[in-house]
């Protein structure tokens, strides 16, 4: 009886998830197997045409490793940048912690389009960085900061940094400070403590932060579009192109699903490799 009542409470959210996540996914799945057609979104009957086209033409197929690479690089950069920040916040005094928390979250206050556009102002060929360097006489031709992986990864890392810092922070804060003292009393120096105690104990945070950022980076559209132009060709760009510009719903759906499944596999493998046995 009690169980039944509890499950009634889940109903609204379950209905929401079913209506707006499960059903659309099913729709996309079905759509990806529909036959293509001219002058309309899709034709009669079913076919594998969408998947065949994606994997057989390198123009499309290569977007998948490009997307995965972008996700991996962004995740790595975020992890490297976020770890010292999280470590610092975790050990800061209460008042500073609040201030630093605010600073970390501040990128989220600005819309993603504005933020990405901001990066184009900084990184463009006649952008702030290049024109400053040129005026200082350090360079004669602009550095390639935009329209490549470098610029897109940088902008993505900026956007997603909070999603790495927060899980790291919560796992570091959950750590008993006496654990580090215990390690010291047993003869461990600071570097050893970081390598053998702090880092492994924060593994749950590293894991969830990495998964979060990877999934977000891989599915990002605005930043690759603005900062990468069409020169960093991610699958997401091609999906939007197929669905909206070319009006090929089956092909777009097939690409979207392939990307989602690939990302899912990467996440599963990652979670498997970094499995935490101790909690």
């Amino acid at each position, binding site marked *: 009886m009690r169980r039944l009542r509890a499950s009634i409470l889940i109903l609204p959210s379950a209905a929401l998830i079913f209506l707006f996540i499960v059903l659309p996914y099913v729709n996309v799945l079905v759509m990806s197997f529909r036959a293509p057609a001219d002058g309309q979104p899709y034709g009669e009957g079913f076919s594998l045409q969408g998947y065949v086209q994606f994997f057989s033409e390198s123009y499309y197929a290569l977007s998948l490793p490009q997307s995965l690479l972008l996700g991996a690089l962004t995740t790595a950069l975020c992890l490297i940048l976020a770890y010292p920040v999280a470590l610092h916040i975790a050990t800061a005094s209460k008042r500073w912690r609040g201030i630093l928390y605010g600073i970390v979250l501040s990128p989220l206050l600005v819309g993603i389009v504005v933020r990405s556009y901001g990066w184009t102002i900084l990184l463009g060929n006649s952008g702030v960085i290049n024109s400053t360097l040129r005026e200082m006489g350090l360079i004669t031709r602009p550095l390639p900061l935009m329209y490549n992986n470098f610029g897109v990864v940088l902008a993505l890392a900026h956007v997603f940094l909070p999603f790495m810092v927060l899980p790291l922070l919560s796992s570091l804060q959950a750590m*008993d400070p*006496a*654990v580090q*003292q*215990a*390690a*010291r*009393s*047993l*003869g*461990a*120096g600071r570097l*050893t403590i970081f390598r*053998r*105690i702090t880092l*492994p*104990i924060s*593994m749950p945070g590293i894991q969830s932060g990495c998964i979060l950022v990877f999934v977000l980076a891989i599915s990002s559209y605005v930043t690759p579009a603005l900062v990468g132009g069409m020169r960093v060709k991610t699958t997401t760009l091609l999906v939007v192109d197929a669905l909206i510009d070319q009006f090929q719903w089956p092909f777009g759906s097939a690409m979207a699903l392939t990307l989602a499944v690939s990302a899912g596999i990467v996440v599963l493998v990652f979670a498997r490799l970094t499995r*935490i*046995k*101790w*909690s």
Partner: protein
Amino acid sequence: MTEVSLLSLTKSYGKAAALKGISLKIGHGEFVSLLGPSGCGKSTTLKCIAGFEDVTDGKILFDNRDISRKLPEDRDIGMVFQSYALFPHMSVAQNLAFGLEMRRVPKDQIAARVARAMEMVQLGAYADRYPKALSGGQQQRVALARALVIEPAIMLLDEPLANLDAKLRDEMRGFIRDLQKRVGITTIYVTHDQGEAMTMSDRVVVMFDGEIAQAAAPETVYDRPASERVARFVGNANILELPVAGQGGQIVLPGGHALQIAAPVPWAGGRLRVMARPEQIALTEPSAGHLGGRVARRYFSGGHVEYHVDTDCGPLIVLCPTSRSYAEGEAVGLQFDAERLWPMQRTGLPEEAAA
């Protein structure tokens, strides 16, 4: 085995002094408790010895080696924390091996010493468990083994039983004391629980406000406290202020009964404050006691009964065996164990006789 000496240890946080010149010598293999209320400086003292706090002034010697400026990792201490502080990502065996690895002990020796340490705390079967899968008492035993397996110069325990439930706490008291005796390691134990300090220690160091109030055997601290504050902190204490008769040593109770005190009283005349522990007073018929009174409250606690008795000397606490019971409101006589009445100075400062 190591001898520990604290020489006028001072610790200040800005203007606030946490330790005001602590001097203490702890002998080879001695078990010493630092006892006091929170904020008395007992934990600060321990942290200074461990090296987690810098000493503002003074010295800490291990066998005449000054270690006050050394890093904690170079001090050769085994420490047990209130939260156990086990490494959650390591199995029991890995937790124990960590300190040995830091000391670059060869691998085969590590395995043997870890196995021996686990037997010592009766956790041989739990080598591959992670701390999360252990009970509080088991975790505490792992923490003890981890501190001892490195065979440190001294062992420091920071309120190690505070997180355990009452029954387990009593068991662990005996367990820790036995283990310490078997290993023979010099041990400093911080607690705010006077019962713990009394039952486990060779010597109890009572601390108030960053200073040592008394350092003595548990029996001495209990029977002959250096001050009223010590008397009240270590168990219940009845303090009676009574006139002294003749050349001293004799006190006169309201009603005329005079009691000869065994303890030396270095002053004569005037009034004296004496301490009587609740179990050093017996209840009898009103006519038979040294002092008359009336039972105000009665608390039964199984093995004995605690009476709060109103008398002409103020309210007194009396602890009696359950053999004869008195009701609330009943008139009773109080009989003192004069031999054990302990004189205190009026001001309650530590004095010669108790030192």
